[in-house]
Each structure stands twice: as C-alpha cells, then as structure tokens.
C-alpha cells in the first residue's frame, strides 16, 4: 500500500493535542498520511475506514528519546524490526536510538543502515543520535558535520565518559557549530567506580557497590559550566536525582539552553525495589531514594523535565541470570511507557494533557522534530488508547524480544488500541 493511501476517520474520541493546546471530543480525519481535519472532518470527507474511538483518547504518536533497538551488534537481544513493533504496540511512533550500537553510530553508513532497517520494518520512525567521539572513545571528535547531514538529530557519547574536560569543551563547540544538540548521560565515571546501585541505605545493607548522588550532580555541574562557556544546546538524558533536577531548573532559569528527561521506571521505583537482589531493578542510572523520586515527579510536573522516555533496553534472559552485580543493566520499557505515565495522572502528579505533552510535544521539541502534534497538516502519527482499560503485565506476552521488566505482575491502566504512523495503522489491539 502506498504511504497514506487510505482515508481514515477516527470518530468520537477525546482529542488531546498539547502542542496546539487542544482538548476536545470530536473526529480526526486523516488523508495522504496527514491530519486533514480536527474535531470535524473536512466537507465531503469519505473515509475508507472508520475507527470508533468513543471513550478513547486520541493523541499524537509518542516520541521516545531513548530506546535501544540492539541492531546492529546485539541482535540476540532484539532487532530494529522486533523493537519497533514493540514501539507500535506501546503507541510510540518516533524513537531515538542512542549511538552505542556495534558498530557505533559514528559514520553516515551506520545511520543509513538503521534507517533502512526501520523503513523496511515499517512499524515506527527511528532517528539516531550520532557519536560525540569516534568509537565513543571519549578522545577524538567524530565527524559530526557528516552525521548531521546523514540525519542525526543530535550527538552524544552514550554511557561512555568523556574524561578530559578539554575534549568535552571542544566537542561541544564543534557540535554547536552545526547546531547539533549534545545529549549527556550525567554520570561521573570515577565517582561511579564499580558501582551498581544507589549509594544509600539499601546498597549498604545488601553490600552492593554504590553509585553516589554526586556521580550525577558533579557531571551535571561540569557540563553546565561548559554549556555556559560554549553556548551549545545540551540535553541531560535520564536524570535520577532530585538535586540534579534543581540544578537544571536553576540553569534554565538563568537562560541556559538545556533540557532534560527522565526514564519512566524512575518515576515509580526506588532503591527499595532492589530487595532480594532483584536484577530486573538493575538500571542505569540506578534507582534512587523516595526523595529523589518525588523530586523527579515534581520536576516533571513543573516542566523542568521536558520528557519521559522508555529507556528501552531489551535483553535475552541470560543477561539477568547472574548475581546482581554481574547482570546487565536496563529494562524493556516501550510497552510500559504510556501506562506508567498515565499512572501519574491517577496519582495526581500530572493532568492528562500534561502527561501527553511529556510524551509527545516535549520530547519532539528536544529533538527539533516536526512530530508530536495533531495540528491540521501535521504527519498523521496517532496513538488511540483506552485510558480506563486495566491489564496485568505478563512478560511472556510482551511484544518486545526483551521480557526483562521490573513491572511484571503490576496492574497497569491505559491500553493502546490503535497506533498510526503517517496515516497507516501499524498496531491494532485485538
């Protein structure tokens, strides 16, 4: 089927489009892969297909700032095809792939490879972050201009450090030359040492090597000083401490061009979830304290944190079958992203439009993408979900190749009914 060939009418849903400040019941008309009409279909619109959305929410397809698809390099954990299908199941239509694939995304060829795989699969749009340094070695600049031309939406060093502050400064200056946003994983490698859990009461008890709060705040402080010096646009990915949120809030207040996001798991779990050496809760950055979780929620509500991401990291079962410190970090998160953010609406942290904004327009703005909106003429990336549907998360029924989740057995609320990518239904729940 040619892209956008079908005319679709999504009828009678609650249309929530935070980008245009829109929240009304009505119809959404889609033609030629774009939004043709909001609330009322254009005169004489004859749909090929009608999706009945009474009682459902119709919002822009979600934009995810961090999802590892494992291809190229780690296909035993997942592939672009398997993980973009999980994205579609989770209502995610655009996702951003960090550069730490194997080979690293430090040449246009790898960008092209990922894009071609994604286009071939057709479940979701994949954009890439390019490597900040060649091979992520933290020492030599990557060919950022070429990466920008190849379509990278920003540059970053994955989770690998750039120990030399002069190299980091030059990398930021060079990125700024081409208008590239630098994505930062705020973690000081030395303070992190061999840590695998938040340095606090739980790690003390379990004897797990700790990662102190200062591993995050020290790196945020170093980067903020360089942002001020270089004027580069910077994005702090996966903030985990309340103190870092306050530092970023202050920097934004001072007018620095910085944004930040948080992973969905960190808005719900804490260090206490490591009890019994639960390897599913072995995440990076580590789950921190109750106070940090509250600080993250508050930062999200106030807009200091512009986005919630899945921080999707699918693994094969063996990756988690070892003593806690030897297990691999991360959780498969694409399919729990929406319900975990909706849970914050139930808990009174966010309004529904705010929740949707942090999953759509917020992250789209960080990436500078034309996505995350249902304005007339916009690309018809749409998520239609039932906000009242409750379901129990059974890892065996996940779409992702990775069944590693700390939320197994949780009763979640909010289920995706349809996902549309450029006017095409790419996911339909049975």
């Amino acid at each position: 089927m040619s892209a956008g060939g079908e005319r679709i009418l999504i009828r009678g849903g609650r249309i929530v489009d935070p980008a245009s400040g829109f929240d009304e019941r009505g119809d959404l008309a889609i033609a030629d892969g774009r939004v043709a009409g909001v609330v009322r279909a254009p005169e004489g619109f004859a749909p090929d297909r009608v999706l009945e959305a009474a009682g459902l929410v119709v919002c822009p397809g979600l934009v995810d700032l961090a999802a590892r698809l494992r291809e190229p390099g780690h296909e035993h954990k997942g592939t672009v095809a398997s993980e973009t299908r999980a994205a579609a199941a989770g209502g995610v239509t655009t996702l951003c792939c960090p550069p730490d694939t194997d080979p690293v995304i430090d040449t246009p060829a790898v960008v092209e490879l990922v894009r071609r795989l994604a286009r071939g699969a057709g479940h979701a749009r994949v954009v890439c972050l390019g490597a900040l340094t060649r091979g992520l070695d933290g020492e030599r600049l990557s060919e950022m201009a070429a990466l920008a031309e190849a379509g990278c939406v920003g540059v970053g060093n994955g989770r690998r450090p750039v120990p030399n502050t002069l190299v980091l400064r030059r990398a930021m200056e060079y990125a700024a030359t081409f208008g590239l946003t630098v994505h930062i994983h705020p973690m000081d490698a030395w303070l992190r040492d061999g840590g695998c859990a938040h340095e606090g009461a739980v790690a003390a008890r379990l004897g797990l090597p700790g990662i102190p709060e200062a591993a995050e705040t020290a790196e945020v402080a170093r980067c903020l000083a360089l942002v001020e010096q270089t004027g580069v646009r910077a994005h702090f990915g996966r903030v985990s401490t309340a103190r870092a949120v306050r530092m970023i809030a202050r920097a934004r207040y001072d007018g620095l061009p910085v944004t930040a996001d948080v992973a969905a798991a960190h808005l719900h779990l804490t260090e206490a979830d490591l009890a019994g050496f639960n390897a599913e809760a072995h995440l990076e950055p580590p789950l921190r304290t109750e106070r940090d979780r509250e600080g993250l929620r508050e930062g999200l509500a106030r807009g200091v944190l512009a986005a919630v991401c899945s921080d999707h990291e699918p693994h094969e079962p063996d990756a988690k079958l070892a003593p806690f410190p030897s297990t691999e970090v991360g959780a498969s998160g694409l399919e729990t992203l929406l319900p975990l953010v909706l849970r914050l609406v139930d808990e009174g942290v966010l309004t529904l439009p705010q929740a949707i904004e942090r999953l759509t327009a917020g992250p789209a703005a960080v990436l500078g993408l034309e996505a995350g909106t249902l304005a007339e003429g916009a690309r018809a990336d749409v998520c239609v979900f039932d906000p009242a549907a409750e379901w129990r998360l059974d890892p065996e029924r996940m779409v992702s190749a990775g069944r590693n989740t700390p939320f197994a057995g949780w009763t979640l609320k909010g289920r995706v009914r349809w996902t549309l990518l450029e006017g095409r239904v790419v996911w339909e729940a049975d």
Partner: protein
Amino acid sequence: MSGASLQVDERGRLRHFLTVEGLGRELLTEILDTAESFAGVTEQTVKKVPLLRGKTIVNLFFEASTRTRTTFELAAKRLSADVLNINVSASATTKGETLLDTLRNLEAMHVDMFVVRHADSGAAHFIARHVRPHVSVVNAGDGRHAHPTQALLDAFTIRRRKGRFEDLVVAIVGDILHSRVARSQIHALNTLGTGEVRVVAPRTLLPAHVEDLGVHVFHRMEDGLREADVVIMLRLQKERMRGAHLPSEHEYFRLYGLTEERLGLARPDAIVMHPGPINRGIELESRVADGPRSVILEQVEHGIAVRMAIMSMTMRTAQGGAA
C-alpha cells in the same frame, strides 16, 4: 526482606543459610545451642557423628580462601558427609561457562549442599533461587554482603566468654565499607539483643547510611573503645591504599591500630576478636594478638562447631526432617 523468606521454610526452619538479616533471635539461639552440642564432638578422640553420612557437600569457591574452606571441610567431615572442594578460578568463568552452568553440572552429580563463596554480593541468593528443591545453600561469603557463618561463630565465641549479650558493648573496628563480615556481625549482634554495637573507622571506610544498620558510629578509636566488652578488629586489604581510601598503613595503624595501651580504654575483661587472617602491625600489634585477651584462635576452633550446626540444620530441613 533480603532473603528471609528464601532461607526459611513455612514452619520457620532454616532451609538455606544466606544472611543473618531477617532471622529471628530464637533461630539464632537454636544455632548457637546446636553448635554447643557439637563443640563436645570436636574435643573427643573420635571426632565424628554420623548425621550426614551418605550426603555430598560441595565447597564451591569462586574466591580464594584457606581458613573458611578448611573449617567448612572439617565440619562436613565430622558430620560424616562426603566433601568435594571446587575452586573455580576467575579465568575458568571468563572462558564462557556461566555460574548457572557450573551449578547445573555439579547438581547433575547429585549434590546435597553447596557451600558457596563468590565475589558478587547476592551470589548465594542467586544460587539458592536456582538449585533443585532438596539442595541446600550455605553462604560462605558473597561480595560485601554477608558472611553469616563467621558472624555466628563470633556470636558463639562472645556467648561462651561473656554468657550473655544484653548489656554488652561491642566495637567493630576497621573497613566496614567492604566487609561482609561486619554486615553479618551487626545483624547477628542486634538480633541477639546486644546492648550497643559500635563501628569505628574513618569516613572513607564506612558505607553511606551505616547508622541505619543499627550501630553507633565513631571516628576516633579512643572514643569507640571506651568501656567496650568486645573489640572486633577487621582485616584491612592492601588495595585500600590504591583506592584512595587511606593514605598509608602507617597512618592507619597510628589512628586505628589496636595497641595494649588503647585496649586499656576498654573494660578490664574485654576480649579481642579478628576474623583472620590478621595483619600484625596494621590492625593490631602482636602483644594484643597473642595476649591474654585475644580469642582469635578460639574463633577458628568454634568455626567448626558452628558450621556443623548450620549444615546439619539446613540439610535436615531441605531433606524433609529425616536426619
């Protein structure tokens, strides 16, 4: 919370022995009482009881150890079990065999109990979660997390010497941060109702929120020793100097080394303990180590009886109360 339900069966009996945390006072007392009954065995000319005859126990050590492995081996032999010592060097595991594969291979040989030492915190829990139902796991030290048999033999030694825990002041001195021994001792002493448990160390050798474990924190040795009934010195690893935890052994001994003079601040009948192996002139001077108040060699001796108690109790539970 950390493993209590995993190591105790529905009737409250010891199924595995992974950590002291979460075990009740009654159960710890039962272990000490059982050990007391075995202490007699080790003093007889025929030092054997047939409790575990026909059982196979594997000492599965992923980290080097002489003392702990030897006392486990002796304990098993005195219970008439067959013992297999397996030292899995780091290189063998990096060749690709996972911990689970190693375990499955040994299980296929019809092992009844694993005594495990591993560099990762949580390793014993992990193994206990994956063994067959009738197999018991005893933790012989996992990372920085726990060394519960050491803690129990220390408690046994204290009870034999002092006869009680209620009004005792126990000072644990040294590298608490990296010490699985200290963590288990703190849980054991608190559960047994010890009057006051203190830790004495510079801040670089204390974990964050250490006071949440139920201890009073001292940075000055002189303050920490005052009126103490029991002084437990921990081993200081040489690596701590490289990791910038300490400037030098010299300064450590000057500030935290146990000398005769400092020991004078403790109660006149205070005893000195050490899990071994000791570093003379770093943690304590020889006059103290070999002095009348040192019970360091008694600890080693008691290790056998305490491990016999724990092995027989867990095995009895795991295999249906027959023994």
